[in-house]
C-alpha cells in the first residue's frame, strides 16, 4: 500500500505530439482511482508512465514517497493487469502467477503458498495446471488478476482489463474487482473508456480529455456537478441535453422562445444550458412556474424496459433532446408535450470555453 502522487506529469512523443499535458494527482492509500476518457485522451499513457513502461518527459511520479521516474518497472513494486491479459501462453496458470515471484528469488514454498491463496480467492485453483489457451475469457481475466495479487504490490494498475469480456461477464468481474480491492486495500489506478465501469468502481474519478484533466471527484460529484460540457456529455447515458441560450439584454432566452426564468450577473454572452434526460418533467398543462418550461415535439419513443426514452425537438425546429421517463410512455410521434425542469436541475456552461459557470444563477421572478 502506498500513496501515488503525480506532479505536473507530461508526455511528449517524437514529433512533438503531446499526449499528456501536465497532470497532477494524488492517489491516497488504498484508494481506487479510475482514469476515464475517450480513446486517445492520454489515460493509458498516464498509467504506463506510472508503471514505468513509458518514459516521463517532465514532472515527477512518486510511489510511496519516493520519486520513481528513473526506476525500472520491476523495481517499482507495482502489478499491472493488461487489456489482453498478456498471459505467457506457454506457461501453466501456476507458472504464470509464480513467474514474477521466482524472478524475485522468493522461496519455493512461499511461492506455492501465495499462489494457492490467490487461486482460492479467485476460484481458479482447479485450473492451475492448465495453459491459458485452455481457459475461457473470464478465467484468463482471473489469472491475470491472480498474477497481480500474488505479488502483494504497493499498487495495482489496470489497463482496461474488462473490455475483452462479454457484457454479462463484465458486470460480474466489475463487482469482483471492487470487492477484491476493498478487501486487500491496495491502492489502485484503473483505466477505462466505459463510463459505467468508471462510475461503479471508482472512489474518485479522473476525467481526461486531450491530455488534460477535466475534472476530479467522486462519481456522484462528477455526475451531479460536471465542471465542463465535455464531462457532462461523457458521463451519463443517454448524454445530457444541451440547449443554446442567448442574452437578450435583461434576461436569458432559450432560442426557441420557451420560458426560462433565470438571470445571471455575468459578462458571458453565450451560454449553453444542460439538462439531464431524467431531469425533465412532463407537465399536465401548458402553464408552469418552473424555471424552465418548453414544448417538445415527439419524433420517436424507445421503450428499453424499465424506462422509456422520448426523442423529439424543442418546439418545431429547435435542438434535439431526449427525455427519460419511468415505465412505458404512451406517447406517439407527432405529439407535442409540455416539458418543465426545476431550477436545481439546470446546468449552465460558457459556450465558448465549455466550462461550468462559476456564478450561480438566481431565480427570476416571473
Amino acid at each position, binding site marked *: 500500500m502506498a500513496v501515488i502522487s503525480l506532479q505536473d506529469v507530461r508526455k511528449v512523443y517524437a514529433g512533438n505530439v503531446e499526449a499528456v499535458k501536465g497532470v497532477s494527482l494524488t492517489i491516497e492509500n488504498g484508494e481506487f482511482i479510475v482514469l476515464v476518457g475517450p480513446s486517445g485522451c492520454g489515460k493509458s499513457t498516464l498509467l504506463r508512465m506510472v508503471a514505468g513502461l513509458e518514459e516521463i518527459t517532465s514532472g515527477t511520479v512518486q510511489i510511496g514517497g519516493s520519486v520513481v521516474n528513473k526506476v525500472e518497472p520491476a523495481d517499482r513494486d507495482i502489478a499491472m493487469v493488461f487489456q489482453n491479459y498478456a498471459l*505467457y501462453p506457454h506457461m501453466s496458470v501456476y507458472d504464470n502467477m509464480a513467474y514474477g515471484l521466482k524472478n524475485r528469488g522468493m522461496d519455493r514454498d512461499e511461492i506455492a503458498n501465495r499462489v494457492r491463496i490467490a487461486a482460492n480467492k479467485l476460484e481458479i485453483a482447479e485450473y492451475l495446471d492448465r495453459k491459458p489457451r485452455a481457459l475461457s475469457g473470464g478465467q484468463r481475466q482471473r489469472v491475470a488478476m491472480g498474477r497481480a495479487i500474488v505479488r502483494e504490490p504497493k499498487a495495482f494498475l489496470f489497463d482496461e482489463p474488462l473490455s475483452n469480456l462479454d457484457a454479462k461477464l463484465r458486470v460480474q468481474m466489475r463487482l469482483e474487482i471492487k470487492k477484491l480491492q476493498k478487501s486487500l486495500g491496495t491502492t489502485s489506478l484503473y483505466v477505462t473508456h466505459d463510463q459505467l465501469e468508471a462510475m461503479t468502481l471508482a472512489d474518485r474519478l479522473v476525467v481526461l480529455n486531450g491530455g488534460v484533466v477535466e475534472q476530479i471527484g467522486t462519481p456522484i460529484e462528477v455526475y451531479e456537478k460536471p465542471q465542463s460540457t465535455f464531462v457532462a456529455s461523457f458521463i451519463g447515458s443517454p448524454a445530457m441535453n444541451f440547449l443554446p441560450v442567448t442574452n437578450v439584454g435583461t434576461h436569458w432566452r432559450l432560442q426557441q422562445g420557451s420560458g426560462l426564468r433565470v438571470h445571471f450577473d455575468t459578462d458571458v454572452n453565450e451560454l449553453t444550458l444542460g439538462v439531464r434526460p431524467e431531469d425533465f418533467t412532463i407537465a399536465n398543462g401548458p402553464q408552469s412556474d418552473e424555471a424552465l418550461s418548453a414544448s417538445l415535439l415527439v419524433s420517436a419513443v424507445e421503450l428499453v424496459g424499465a424506462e422509456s426514452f422520448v426523442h423529439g425537438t424543442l418546439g418545431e425546429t429547435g435542438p434535439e433532446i431526449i427525455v427519460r421517463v419511468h415505465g412505458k410512455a404512451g406517447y406517439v410521434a407527432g405529439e407535442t408535450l409540455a416539458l418543465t425542469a426545476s431550477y436545481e436541475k439546470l446546468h449552465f456552461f460558457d459556450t465558448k470555453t465549455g466550462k461550468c459557470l462559476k456564478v450561480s444563477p438566481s431565480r427570476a421572478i416571473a
Partner: protein
Amino acid sequence: MRRVHFWDHLILILGSLLMLMPILYAFMTSTHDPVSIFRNGMQLSPGGHFFETYHTILTKAGGFTKEVTGVTMFWNSMILGIGFAVGKIVISMMAAYAIVYFRLPFASFFFWIIFSSLLLPLEVRILPSYEIVQSMGMMNSYAGLIIPLIASATGTFYFRQFFKSVPDELVEAARIDGAGPVKFFLDILVPLSRTMIAAIFIIMFVYGWNQYLWPTLITTDESFFTLVRGIKQITQVYAESRLPKVNEAMALSILAMLPPILVVIIFQSWFVKGLVESEK
C-alpha cells in the same frame, strides 16, 4: 456437382502420378541388376536385387566414389543439414532479437547490412567466396561447408517478422515481473517461438541437405562428401563408362532424397507453415 468433382479428382490423380512416376522408376530400377537394366531400360516393377544393391552402396567404397561409403556420405549430409539449420536458427534468432527488442543507435544501419545479404545468392559471388574460404584454410572442413552458407539473412527476417507479431504486452508483463532481456529471451520468447523454430528448422534442414554447388567446390577430400555432392561423381563416372551401374546410381539418388522427403512429409504442417509464413 458429382460430375464436376470426378474431373477434379482425375486431374489431381494425374498430377500426383506426374510427381510420383519418375521417383518410382528410379526406385524400381535400383532393385534390378545392371545387366538387365542395360538390356531392358528402366523398370517399373520390383527386381530381386534390393538388399544387395543398397547394402553395396551403403557399406562399400569404390563404386562411383573411391574412398567413401554411402553411410559416411549420409552422416556428412546429416551434419550439413542439421548444422546449417541449427547454426542459422541460433544466429538469426539472436540478431532478430537485438533488432526488434533493443533501442540501438545504429539500428537501421545494421538492418540494411543484414538486409543486403538477401540480395545476392551464393551463386553470383561464388568465386570470391571460394577464394576467401580457401585462404582461411577452411577447405575440406565442416566449418567451411556450413558457415559461409549461413551468410544470408533469411532466418533473421523470418524471426524479425515473428517477433514483431508477438504482443507488446508480453514484454511489458515480463518487465513488471522482473525479467531482464536475457531472461525474457530464454523464458518467454524462445518457448513462444517453438513452432516457428520447428518450421524454419525443417526448411533449413532440407536446404542444407540439398546443397550442391558449394560442397562441390569446398570438399575435394572424399571423406567430407555429402550424398548430394556424391551425385557429381556419379555423373562423371557415367559420362566415361559405357556399362554404368545404373542400379547403384538410382539407389544413391533414393538415399539422397529419402531423409528430406520423410522430414517434409512427417512434419508437413510445420513445413507448409514455415514455407508460407516465412515468405510474407
